[in-house]
Every structure is written in structure tokens, then in C-alpha cells.
């Protein structure tokens, strides 16, 4: 029989309470709903679908939602469309033929004929499972006219590490179609306009991703992928932090945010607090802050919209009390 660890015995009543709060699982058609959503967006038929009865409430609801505002993107789409079934044996035969030809051709001749250059320690091509770095991405949500100019609202913003001036590529059917520049940003959305010439017009649901990855985006993508509760790179305030010797240091401040409702810029909360790059955050809302986790916990506990933020920071060797204006 397996032994119960001592700490579980020590908290026996709590453990019992936890076991009692055990949830009933989700709706029984939950998995159907997920697969329906994926199928609807990606056109991939589930092998099991044919053997399943028609979708229940959840599945229908999800299908309707997806068909209305599709939000998905197949993992393999980036790497090209799926080959038709007949292509596989044909492709296999061609690959085998090429392999034999290469094996029986002296390497030097083959390289000379092909014009290729030998690169010492040439790294292997990146595997599909090992991308170089995480990439924030999003979709165009709507097309609007702002001041007579055609603009595109995308569903990625500060949380994804986007800032005014960033350049994004937009794609349709897995192919790059043009460029967009961010002209306004809010926590979860950004407003962009087309840059350069493109034969096609961006449309809702077109995929967007940064043309150049900034450090802020990298960091935001890592935060999101790691499931951190840090609200992306900016904590919903407009600051980016790093661990320093004295505590957590403000590395970047986003001063202005864009409000989706009327597209007017407004100062970020970091700006209203008066935070500066280089400040060491010592306390927030009267509680000591020693790590980013501390700050996250404090910010997640309060309703940010209904709270006047206060912070104590160390600036140029002096402690300063900051209050949101």
C-alpha cells in the first residue's frame, strides 16, 4: 500500500475538503466541441466524426461561434498545405530515387554541380517541434476608417508585446500578403494601417505576426507560453520588468495607449503613476514587492479599474512614493 506523505496527513482536513470540491467534468460533448471547432476552421475531418452522432449543444454552439468569427489556424499551415493522398507514394518513390543518386555520386562533384557551398558545422534545419523562438501572433478583427484612413484592428496588443511603430506581416492562406504598421495599442488589441503596396486588401481573420521580433515581444511570447499570470510583458500597466540586484527594475515604460472605443490615445497607468525606466519597485498598494510574482499577486487581487494604484520605488538612491494621477 502506498504511504501518504506526512504533509498530507498534517493538512488532512484541507485535503479532505479539496477532495470534496472535486468537480464533475465538462459537458460530455466537450471533446466533440473542440474537434468541431478545429474541423470547422481547418477543414480537417476527424476520423471519429463519422462514427459519432450529431453534435450536441456545446458542439453546435462552438460551431456557430467559429463560423461567425473563426479564430483558428492549423499548426501545419505555416509549413505548407497538406499533400493529397496520392502524392505520398509518388513523393516516396522520388525521394528514394534521389537518395540513390546522391549516394552513388561523389559528394564533391555533387556540390560543384549544384553550386552549393560547404558550410562547416552547418546546423540542421529547425525541426517542427523545436521552433527558434516563440512568436506572438494574432488576427485581423475588423476594418475601420479612422480620420478617412483605412485601418485594421488586430487582436494582439500590449499583452503580446506590441508597441506603436512595430511592423507586422499579414498572411492569407499561409502566404505572406503585405505589411501593417501599429499606430495605436491597447492591452489586448492594436490598430494598424497597411504599409507599402499590396495587391490584396487585409480582411478580418487574416493572420498577423511580427516581421521583426523585438525583445519585448520575445519576452511577452514566453510569458504567454509559460502560462505566467503576468498579463504579458506589461502587467496591464505599461511596464516591462526585469530582476535586478536591488529588486525588480522597470526596463521599459509604454507611455500612451489606444482606446479601442474611440481610437484616441490616453496615458498608460505607468505613465499616470510617474514610473520611469530604472525605477526599482519596492511596494505596490502598500504591500512589499520583492519579485515579479509578488507584483502579479497584488495586481491580480484588486480590480485594476476601480483602484488608484500606489507604488514605492527606489530612484537615484531615494525612495519615492508614487500615486496614480
Amino acid at each position, binding site marked *: 500500500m502506498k504511504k501518504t506523505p506526512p504533509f498530507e496527513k498534517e*493538512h488532512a482536513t484541507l485535503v479532505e475538503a479539496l*477532495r470534496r470540491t472535486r*468537480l464533475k467534468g465538462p459537458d460530455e460533448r466537450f*471533446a466533440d466541441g473542440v474537434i468541431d471547432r*478545429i474541423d470547422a476552421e481547418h477543414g480537417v475531418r*476527424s476520423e471519429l466524426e463519422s462514427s459519432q452522432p450529431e453534435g450536441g449543444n456545446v458542439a453546435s454552439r462552438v460551431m456557430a461561434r467559429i463560423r461567425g468569427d473563426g479564430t483558428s489556424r492549423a499548426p501545419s499551415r*505555416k509549413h505548407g498545405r497538406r499533400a493529397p493522398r496520392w502524392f505520398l507514394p509518388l513523393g516516396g518513390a522520388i525521394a528514394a530515387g534521389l537518395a540513390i543518386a546522391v549516394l552513388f555520386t561523389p559528394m564533391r562533384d555533387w556540390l560543384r554541380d549544384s553550386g552549393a557551398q560547404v558550410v562547416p558545422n552547418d546546423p540542421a534545419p529547425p525541426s517542427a*517541434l523545436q521552433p527558434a523562438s516563440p512568436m506572438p501572433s494574432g488576427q485581423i478583427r475588423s476594418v475601420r476608417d479612422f480620420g478617412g484612413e483605412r485601418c485594421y484592428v488586430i487582436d494582439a496588443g500590449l499583452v503580446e508585446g506590441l508597441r506603436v511603430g512595430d511592423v507586422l506581416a499579414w498572411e492569407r492562406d499561409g502566404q505572406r500578403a503585405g505589411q501593417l504598421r501599429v499606430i495605436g495599442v491597447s492591452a489586448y488589441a492594436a490598430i494598424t494601417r497597411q504599409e507599402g503596396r499590396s495587391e490584396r486588401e487585409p480582411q478580418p481573420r487574416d493572420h498577423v505576426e511580427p516581421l521583426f521580433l523585438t525583445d519585448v515581444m520575445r519576452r511577452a511570447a514566453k510569458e504567454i507560453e509559460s*502560462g505566467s499570470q503576468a498579463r504579458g510583458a506589461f502587467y496591464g500597466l505599461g511596464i516591462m520588468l526585469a530582476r535586478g540586484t536591488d529588486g525588480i527594475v522597470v526596463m521599459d515604460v509604454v507611455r500612451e495607449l489606444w482606446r479601442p472605443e474611440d481610437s484616441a490615445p490616453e496615458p498608460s497607468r505607468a505613465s499616470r503613476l510617474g514610473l520611469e525606466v530604472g525605477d526599482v519597485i519596492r511596494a505596490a498598494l502598500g504591500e512589499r514587492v520583492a519579485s515579479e510574482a509578488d507584483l502579479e499577486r497584488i495586481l491580480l487581487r484588486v480590480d485594476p479599474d476601480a483602484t488608484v494604484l500606489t507604488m514605492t520605488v527606489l530612484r537615484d538612491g531615494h525612495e519615492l512614493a508614487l500615486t496614480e494621477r
Partner: protein
Amino acid sequence: MAHDDASLVKRTLGGDTAAYRELVERYQRAVFSCAYQLLGSRHDAEEAAQEAFVQAFEKLDRLREPRYFFSWVWRITSTVALKWRLKQRRSELGLEADMFAREREQAPVEREEQRLTLLQALAQLPEEQREAITLRFWEEMDYAQMGKLLGISHDALYQRVSRGLKQLRELLGQDFVVRE
């Protein structure tokens, strides 16, 4: 025969949606629990859990260690649920304070209040501790199964569960009692 997560991920990347369905069915309960802890409503938790599985499918080619699919999808779920919660905050001020209200109406008061208090405390735990506690006490896994699923040692898991329980106790206070 049950397939391991890594082979199911690889099959999914090869275009086999049935493999992904198997992954969804395997972890739907735990993922749903994760969303529920943060959202406090069955309906929202189901929507967020579905969203998380769809996002995981879309990002599957970025998963570096396919055998740790669960841990990865758990983190995606947390992010989706937290974003959801923050958006709710913005669109409906005051909802946050009463986010468990809908559930509260439907169950006997005392026991239900205790459950909700516990859920709210769970939502405040650091991610790793919440994950370990959910697997241990809601999914009824032993430490060996958890270690295999999360790719961490027994010692590390003991520490996460032990710290999580301790912190939960602090958050709930000594007055918290288990009601029959």
C-alpha cells in the same frame, strides 16, 4: 491500447485529428478544472477550456517537448482563463467581486460557500502549486503518475504540494472547517 502523449502529438502534427481527440479526452477534466478555478463558472470554464485546446492545436508545432503536452496545455488554459477574467473585469465592472454568484445560487448554502471559498483560495496559488494540487486531489493521481506527466522529480512535487497546502491553509485561515 493507450498511446503516450508524445506519439499522439506527433500523429496530430501529421494531420490525424483523432489523435488530438484522444489528447482532449484524456485531459479535458483537468483542463476544465484549471479554468474553473480561475473563472468560477462552469459555463465560462467550459468555453475557456475549449478555447485552450483549440489554441494548443494551433500552436502544437511550437511544443518543444511533446511528452509534456499536459503541462503545456495547462499553462495555455491559465492564460486563456486569466485573459478572459481580465476582459470581464473591463467590460463588466463589479462582476469580479461576484464572479461565483451564479454557481452559489444552485447549491446548499454552507457547503457551497465552503467550496467557493476553497476555489477562490486555489485561484490565488502560484501556477505550479495549483497544478500539482489539482492533479493530486482532484484527478486522484499518485506522485509517480504526476512526475511522469509533468516531467519533474518526486521531491519537487512533494515540495509543490506541501507548499501549496501550507499556503492554502494560510489563505483560508485556521477557522476554515470541513463541513459534512
